[in-house]
Structure formats: C-alpha cells, structure tokens
C-alpha cells in the first residue's frame, strides 16, 4: 500500500477557510465576489440536476445521470479553464458543460433522445460527452498532441471516473501523454462508485498514485472543496501550458445519487455512507464559509435562488419545447459525402414513408398499417 497522502483542502466541511502555503497562491484572486459567484454556480448546477431528474421521472427525458455531490469537483475545475482549452468529458460532467457555457436546452438534448450530441463541440470547446468508459482520455491526449504541434499554449482536459481508471484506454492515454509530454490534464472524479462497484474493486492503491507509474505527477484533492479543486486544476493547467506535460488529478468526491435514473443504489450501498458524505456536502460548505464571512445576506441568497429557479424553468421549457427530429434525419451525417449504399436505403425508405400519404403516420409503430 502506498502512503496515504493528505487531501489538498482549503475549505473544511464545516466551512472554515484553512491556509495552505502551497495552494493558497493559486486562488488568491478569489475574493468575496468570486466566492459568491462559485456558490451560485454550485447551487444552480444542483438545481439543474434536480430539474433534470424530475423531467426524467415525468417521462420527458429517457435517462439522466445525476451529479449530486460532485458539484464542487465540476465547478472548481470547470471555472479554472480558459476559453481555448478543450474538454473531453464523460456523460456526468453536465456541471462542467454549464461552466463552458453550453446552452441549457442543449444539456438535455441527448437525454431526451433528440440527438446523439447536445451541442457543436467547437462552439464551447467541449467534446460530445463520452459514453464508452474512458475512451475520451485518448481523444484528449491526441488533441493535446495537436496543440503541441500547433505551438499553442491551450490545454486538453479530460474527465473520467474511478471505474474508468481500470480501462485500457485510460492507461494507454497516460502512456502516450507521458511519452509525448502532451499538454493534457487527467481529471479523475473519484466518486467511489462505478454503478454498483466500489472503488476498492478497481484499485488497491489510491488512484492518484497510479499516475506515478506512468511518470505523471499527480495531485489528490478534496473534490468537495471548490477552492481546492480550482487550485489543483490551475497548477495542472499551468504546468501543461508551460511545457511541463500531463498531470493527473484525483478529486475525491462522492456520487450521492444513483448512477443514472435507472439505477437503485440501495441494492449495493449502505445508507450510513451517504450520511457521512452528506456531512461533507460541497454546496453546504461554501454556504457555511459565506456565512462565517458575513457574506450570506438575504439579498445574496435571494439572487442565487432566483438564478437557480430561472435556470430550472429554462431547462424545463427548453426540454419540453424541443421539436422532434424528422424521420429522414436518421440518415443524416453518417458520411460527409454521398454514399451509394446509404443513399439508396434513404431513397427506398422515403418511398416507403410516402406510400402512407402522411409520412408521420409511418413512424407511429403499430398504428402505421
């Protein structure tokens, strides 16, 4: 077993700001106003999660992967990025997507089944979230090799979970990133559970220590501490921008909800564990800090609540009002140029649809004939 490295922490679960000589300088620009802004982000993202879960329960979304409990890991890192950095994430980083400026309706598009990608990756410099576990870490590494070739100083940042660290792709990505000293940050959200499998099934050592074997420096940070996550991410980004190569960040957090809305965590984990982590809640601790600092005025609280409710309303109306795709859209964009096989299938299916008179009628399954 490796040494149990202390977590980097700047805000205690009780909301006390503690000093850390090595990491304080990286967040010295975060004053009262910025702290309130981070609190707003955390609150809004939690509200998005609640709204999306409700939309799933009401049949408006097919599925939703809640990020409850992981807000600080996503906001702390997401708000550390520059616009020209590029994110390659998993499906759970909807909080990061919010930080990147993804349109609120677009966040639900995939989960409603209206598209396989909610947004054009180039408009927000965030790739379509990846469903194949860990595959995106290689894309980030390749993208970072491209940054290197271009002589740019932006960074590719990839998000993945504790389960993904067992995947070959993640390990191969670290081999490549180290070999080419690519400007990539491996951000591992260790939320302790890969659906029903606990992190101890994936690894007998701390995940951050795995990076050492690849020759990649790593940081182990309290993932429920938004400031500590921001500081660690900035350290990693700075290293990558200045030719120092990749960094692995293990953000120690907890998935307080189910894997997705289709999952039932009571079948595999103890309720006590959830209670322990509720005491380390990432949103509550910033709220407590603001309270200690006398910043949590009625006005601030009201503003944050209003913003969260407005976002929730926009998500809901955007989701429900989303137009259904057209039947023949099923053939679109498989290729970027004509393809004789597919063009023939499309032509035949269009004729089939037209044979009903009303093309929409053909898609209503049993009722079609």
């Amino acid at each position, binding site marked *: 077993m490796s040494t149990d490295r202390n977590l980097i922490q700047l805000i205690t679960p009780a909301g006390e700001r503690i000093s850390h000589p090595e990491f304080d300088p990286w967040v010295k620009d975060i004053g009262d106003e910025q702290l309130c802004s981070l609190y707003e982000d955390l609150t809004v993202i939690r509200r998005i999660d609640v709204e999306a879960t409700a939309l799933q329960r009401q049949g408006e979304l097919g599925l939703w992967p809640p990020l409850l409990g992981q807000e600080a890991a996503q906001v702390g890192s997401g708000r550390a990025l520059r616009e020209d950095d590029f994110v390659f994430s998993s499906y759970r980083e909807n909080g990061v997507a919010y930080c990147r400026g993804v349109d609120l309706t677009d966040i639900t598009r995939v989960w409603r089944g209206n598209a396989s990608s909610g947004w054009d990756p180039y408009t927000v410099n965030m790739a379509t979230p990846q469903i*194949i576990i860990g595959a995106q870490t290689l894309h980030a590494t390749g993208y*970072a090799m491209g940054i*290197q070739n*271009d002589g740019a100083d932006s960074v*590719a940042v990839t998000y993945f979970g504790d389960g993904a660290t067992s995947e070959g792709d993640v390990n191969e990505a670290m081999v490549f990133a180290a070999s080419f000293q690519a400007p990539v940050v491996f951000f591992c959200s260790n939320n302790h559970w890969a659906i029903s499998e606990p992190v101890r099934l994936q690894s007998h050592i701390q995940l951050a220590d795995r990076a050492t074997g690849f020759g990649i420096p790593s940081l182990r940070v309290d993932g429920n501490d938004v400031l500590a996550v921001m500081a660690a991410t900035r350290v990693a980004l700075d290293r990558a921008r200045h030719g120092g190569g990749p960094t692995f960040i293990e953000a120690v957090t907890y998935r307080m909800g189910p894997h997705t809305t289709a999952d039932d965590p009571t079948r595999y984990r103890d309720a006590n564990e959830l209670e322990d982590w509720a005491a380390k809640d990432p949103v509550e601790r910033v709220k407590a800090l603001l309270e200690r600092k006398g910043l949590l005025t009625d006005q601030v609280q009201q503003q944050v609540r209003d913003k969260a409710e407005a976002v929730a309303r926009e998500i809901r109306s955007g989701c429900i009002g989303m137009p259904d795709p057209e039947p023949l859209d099923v053939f679109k*964009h*498989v290729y*970027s140029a004509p393809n*004789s096989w597919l063009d023939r299938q499309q032509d035949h299916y269009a004729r089939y649809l037209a044979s009903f008179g009303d093309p929409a009628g053909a898609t209503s399954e049993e009722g079609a004939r």
Partner: protein
Amino acid sequence: MTQMTFARAINSGLRKSLENDPKVILMGEDIGTLGGVFRVTDGLQKDFGTHRVVDTPLAESAIMGAAVGLAYRGYRPVVEIQFDGFIYPAFDQIVSQVAKLHYRTQGAVKMPITIRVPFGGGIGSPEHHSESPEAYFTHTSGLRVVSVSNPQDAHTVIQQAILSDDPVLYFEPKRRYHDKGEVDEGIDPRTALPMDTARVVMEGADVTLVAYGPLVKTARDAAIAAADDGISIEVIDLRSLAPVDYATLEASVRKTGRLVVTHEAGQSGGLGAEVAASITERCFYHLEAAPVRITGFDIPYPYSKLEMHHLPGLDRILDGVDRALGRPNSLSGLEG
C-alpha cells in the same frame, strides 16, 4: 511514368499528401526511423520530421484514439496498423468513435482519418500476420473501406483516402508489396477515377469475376488461362468494399449473366455474401446461374504450410467459374 514497387507507390503517395497538406500527420509503430516493417514509410520521417511522422508507443487503441483527438483539432491523421491481426485492440476506437463521431455530432466534427492495414496471407508468416478482417469494417456504417490491387491505384487511392473527409480503411495486399508496375505520379487524385468506384480490368462475355486486393492478380491470371479454353471472363477490381459500386457490377452481370466473387476472407458473412445477395436482388432476371463464392474457409488463418489450401488460387477460382457456367466441376452431381 515510373516503374516502382507497390510499397514504393504508397510511399510516394504518402509523400505527396505530406507535402500538399501540413495537417497530414502519420502515426504508427516503427514507421519513423525504421520506415515501417514493410518500409512503406521509408525516409518520410527524415524528410518531414518527428512531429509529422510519429513513432508511437505500442498501443493500437491509443494510436487510434489519439488520431481521433488530432482530427478533433483539425488534423488528417494517417494511421498504420502494422499487421491486420493487430487491429483488434483498436477496434472499439474505430467502431465506436472514428466511425460514429460525424453522425454523433450532426456533422460538426469530421474524422478524416486514414487507417492503413497491410492485410491478407501468402507470405508464410505465423498467426495474426495474414488475416482479412475487412468485413468487420464494411459492416460498420460511417467508414469507407477500400483495397488496392496495383501500384498505380495504391499511389492514387492513398491520396484520395487522405483527402476524404470520412474515415477510410485502406487495405494493402502485403503479398503484392514487391510487385512492380508503371506509376504516373502526375495523376491528380482529385480528378482520377473516384475511390468509391470499381474498375473493369479485363472485359469478357461469359462470366463476371469480382475480386479485390491481392486476388485481382490471381483473377486476371485465371481469366487469361480460361481464354485458352474459350471462356471469356470479365474481371472486375472492386477497389471500394464499402460502399460497393453496384452500378459497375450490375452492368457487367446484365451482360454476362453469371457472377463469381472471390476473396481470402472466410465465406460466412463475408463481402462475397453481400455482393451475391445485392446482385441477385438487383439483376435476378439477368442471372443464368446462382452466384458462386470462392473464398477462404471459415477457419482461423492456418499455419503457413497449409495456407495455400485456404487461399483461393487460380485453379479453385476456375473451378468456381466452371460451376457458374454449368460445366463439369468439383461439385458436379452434388445438390445445393
């Protein structure tokens, strides 16, 4: 026109692509200093630098996944898979990412990746060095799959593959690497015969014989031999395996009324099955006989002392031609 080997013709095509587009980047195992185990990339790293011709660690999934990331960044990666049998670690990245990203992103992200795969047998190698995995990829939507049969096409089509905004699997018949042919390096890939078209390489009247990659030469030899017996075979080089150029095949079969398809890959679920089914659908009333498939067997690629039994040769192809023509053949008297 210059006389050059198949391998040299690909090398020359790669060189042109590297010269013409700074976004073209070659990646693979041993492709740099060594010039590739078949020397196809010989000298390119020396001339274009280690950042354009990249020797990678030994991880095929990473090579492919990194190519996806580079494509996201606007590059045109050309990936070498050292041998056909080594492509499977990259299969997930090819099928789940390379093939689907354009569709997934509604056209926002292009994947102009060329995947070069030396394939096929006949070189006396141990296991995993002689496979024909093309059907896995022709079955995967989002990919274009080509195979070249002669130095000129090798030279032109590699450039067309790299110019394509869609991902292309480019299957190189490794047992033909040392074959020589005339190559016109001045041919513009943009105006040459498009990559997704088949070519009639020998005209004939009695049977249409469809082949691709290494077996085009065998098919031609078979047609020449058959001519001595008064049988006129039309040989078609498929070139594009996905999509198949059925217009060219249909025109030929409407004329000959008979179809024989040959490939090294196993029979069941292979490309020959797809060609036979599609031609039957499209020109059933022009067919005088059932389509015939002459293929490798449905076995793992055998050890080299037996490989010539597995690989369709001239005589086995002609036996199939006899079957299509209703002439005495090895299966005469058997039903079905």
